[in-house]
């Protein structure tokens, strides 16, 4: 039975199979590996910036290169690492956690990866040809506009945004439909793992937040290329339109990056505390509340712009309120941890590191929500410290914990524990020593995005200390990179459930076969693998010669009907290539889009045209009434 399934579900060998890949496990791994390569590139840019800032009036990096470095560092970390790595983890883990054999739209996930890859390569090819963006990852107009940003630098940025957001939107649609319709029978909405809840909320946030930046970057690209006046005040445009449109997207974006981190903690804790996360309902409602309130806080990025005080006070209140759900989640985890028989493996260390680090960022966030404090520390190194505490503390720490936790599942080999612990301690100490001094620098008046500073400014010692400490942080991260590279081939072999965890992904062998589950499980509780084997059921009756899966109802996951999932196909790559050509050509001439549409139509027809053996239609009979 299994080799029949394997024959049906595996794509075959060779380059053409590699390009036509649609299995969520492979595409998820590609997302994560590519995102970590961009993370390394972003890290190198950060190291260059720290070296330039280590001494006053340093001539190592000129202003033009420095501006390109910090813009590419910001854009890489936000658009090419943080969101895509969460997309990758979601693509890899969600189907496994809900007992499905693949995502609902397999070819759409392949398209999502290829479009992301095109966006990333566009930014770095641009950067290597001195055409990297240089007006900041937020690209405020008029600096990023046609009058003050000559050449194609900001166009590269705007198109990269369009690619990465297109990719995120495609993954979000995929995840929502998979979570809604392909859950294993019995996994009702209240038995879904908390990480799946996090990805569901994040997917909806992506669907409603990303269009804002796609519209904003398209308006900027049109302003620069064909001379529209969205951001030209003399002709009726408005620079604050850009800020509102961008931050309406960018604040939900940071929660899109951060909520999967919280979900991963809820997934890691049970394995190392031998307890289910306390307050399942509280954590779920907190995640959903954070998802909604995240859309109502964006003006706290614009307190210094001189907007009316009443509006600012509203946004102070909403920015303070959003900490309550996250606080409740923390209290639930603390209650879960309280005097539990902990096993201090690396994943748990990174979760504990999250507590120590993220809470600092959360509290400086509360301080930044107050207008009087924000007027002093906005756009200074204080904010740089805050954002790194919440992003590295809140998302990268749980992510590294997740890498150590799910690496055995993805590759079949355990990561080295000693190297993991060493990497954790170096990362924790290096991170705090690098970024805590930046709080003081910000209060002492050091603005953000400055390529140098005067000898008499009094910022020298803290900057030097931060640069040295950033070496320790880099070393910590490097050890995890080496650990992955070495253990990927020579790590200790892992069996199906090395951590004795409770969720479904540990029911399949490591690495999972092409069809994931030999028999799709039925679920009867929140911790399926901690049930006695007798209580676990299986689904039978699915065809093994076709990619057939069972579609279940939305709330109770009762079996509803069977459907055939799409198989390996070259069309996603073709569609991504057409999207790439269309948008890159439209950086140079407005005729790029009509070209894209003209090329796109045949590709779309190729993609949607039915393939494989048709199930004959009983033509003209009154149709098989849906049961």
């Amino acid at each position, binding site marked *: 039975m299994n080799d029949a399934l394997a024959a049906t579900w595996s794509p075959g060998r060779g380059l053409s199979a590699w390009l036509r890949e649609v299995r969520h496990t492979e595409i998820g791994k590609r997302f994560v590996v590519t995102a970590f390569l961009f993370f390394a590139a972003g890290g190198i840019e950060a190291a260059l910036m720290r070296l330039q800032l280590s001494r006053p009036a340093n001539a190592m990096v000129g202003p033009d290169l420095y501006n390109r470095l910090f813009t590419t560092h910001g854009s890489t970390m936000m658009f090419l690492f943080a969101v895509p790595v969460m997309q990758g983890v979601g693509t890899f883990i969600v189907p496994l956690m809900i007992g499905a054999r693949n995502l609902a739209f397999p070819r759409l996930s392949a398209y999502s990866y290829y479009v992301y890859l095109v966006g990333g390569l566009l930014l770095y090819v641009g950067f290597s040809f001195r055409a990297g963006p240089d007006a900041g990852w937020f690209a405020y107009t008029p600096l990023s506009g046609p009058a003050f940003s000559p050449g194609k630098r900001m166009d590269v940025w705007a198109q990269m945004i369009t690619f990465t957001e297109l990719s995120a939107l495609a993954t979000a649609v995929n995840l929502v439909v998979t979570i809604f319709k392909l859950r294993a029978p019995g996994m009702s909405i209240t038995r879904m793992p908390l990480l799946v809840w996090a990805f569901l909320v994040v997917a909806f946030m992506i669907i409603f937040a990303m269009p804002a930046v796609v519209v904003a970057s398209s308006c900027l690209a049109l302003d620069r290329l064909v001379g529209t006046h969205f951001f030209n005040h003399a002709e009726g445009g408005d620079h604050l*339109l850009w800020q509102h449109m961008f931050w309406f997207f960018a604040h939900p974006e940071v929660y899109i990056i951060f909520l999967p981190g919280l979900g991963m903690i809820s997934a890691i804790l049970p394995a190392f505390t031998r307890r289910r996360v306390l307050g399942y309902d509280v954590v779920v409602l907190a995640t959903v509340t954070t998802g909604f309130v995240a859309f109502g806080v964006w003006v706290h990025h614009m307190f210094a712009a001189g907007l009316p005080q009443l509006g600012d006070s509203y946004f102070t209140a909403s920015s303070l309120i959003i900490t309550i759900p996250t606080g409740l989640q923390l209290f639930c985890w603390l209650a879960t941890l309280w005097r539990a028989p902990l096993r201090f493996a690396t994943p748990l260390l990174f979760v504990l590191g999250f507590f120590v680090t993220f809470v600092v960022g959360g509290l400086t966030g509360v301080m930044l929500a107050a207008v009087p404090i924000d007027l002093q520390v906005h756009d200074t190194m204080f904010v740089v410290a805050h954002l790194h505490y919440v992003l590295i503390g809140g998302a990268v720490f749980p992510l590294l914990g997740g890498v150590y936790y799910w690496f055995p599942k993805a590759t079949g080999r355990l990561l080295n524990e000693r190297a993991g612990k060493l990497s954790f301690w170096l990362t924790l100490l290096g991170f705090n020593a690098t970024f805590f001094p930046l709080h003081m620098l910000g209060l002492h008046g050091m603005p953000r995005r400055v390529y140098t500073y005067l000898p008499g400014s009094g910022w020298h010692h803290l900057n030097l200390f931060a640069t040295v400490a950033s070496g320790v942080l880099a070393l910590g991260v490097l050890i995890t990179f080496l650990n992955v590279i070495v253990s990927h081939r020579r790590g200790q072999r892992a069996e199906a459930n090395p951590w004795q965890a409770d969720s479904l992904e540990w029911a399949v062998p490591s690495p999972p076969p092409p069809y994931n589950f030999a028999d799709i499980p039925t679920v009867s509780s929140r911790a399926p693998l901690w049930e006695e084997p007798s209580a676990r059921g299986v689904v039978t009756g699915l065809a093994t010669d076709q990619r057939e899966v069972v579609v279940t109802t939305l709330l109770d996951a009762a079996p509803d009907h069977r459907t055939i999932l799409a198989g390996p196909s070259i069309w996603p790559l073709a569609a991504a290539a057409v999207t790439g050509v269309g948008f890159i050509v439209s950086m140079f001439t407005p005729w790029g889009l009509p070209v894209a549409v003209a090329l796109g139509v045949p590709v779309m027809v190729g993609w949607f045209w039915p393939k494989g053996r048709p199930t004959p239609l009983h033509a003209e009979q009154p149709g098989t009434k849906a049961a």
Partner: protein
Amino acid sequence: MSATANNPAAPRSLDVSGLPSHAFGHRAPLWWGVLLMVAIEATTMALLLVSYLYLRGNEDAWRPVRLGWPTLEVAIVQMALLLASVLPTMGAVRAARDGRLKATRARLLLATALGAAMLVLRCFEIRLLPFRWDTDARGSVFWMTFGLHTAHVLTGVLENAMMLVLLYRGRVEEKHFGDVEAGALLWYFSVVEWLPAMALLYFDPLLWPT
């Protein structure tokens, strides 16, 4: 929200071979996929209309051009065509749910023809519009919203056209009736989104003193 009480323990082995191989409406994954895509496009259109209202706010530079004959009339006819195409689309969906191939094909053809007619009129309107995208901010927002909606309608017409080719000549399968319904979702959205957009783009200038 506690689940363990009312959910019966799952049976030992669940045979699903008896289940239908296709479903309509919210039970089908494709329907949800198209609904979410409509949500994305709706958010995009809503943001453009919000930025139109935002830019309309600074009155000193806002000089909307009143659209007179024939541009306004051509736009109104297009809206009528779009609204008219909703009926045959709904008819096609009803026929698709009943599996009646001939009726589905005919009604979908009518709906697509009306959509195509609207696109032809739109090409005329492009030449009739008295301002360009680089005239001023209002022109820019107008043309961007105009372009986005045209893209939506074009996508809908092309998708319906492909579906028609399949229904007339291809090997029709059960699930293709579901695709007709999913395509209809996108078409309903393309029609409905143009109502608020038209109010703002075409009729709002009439409120401004000349």
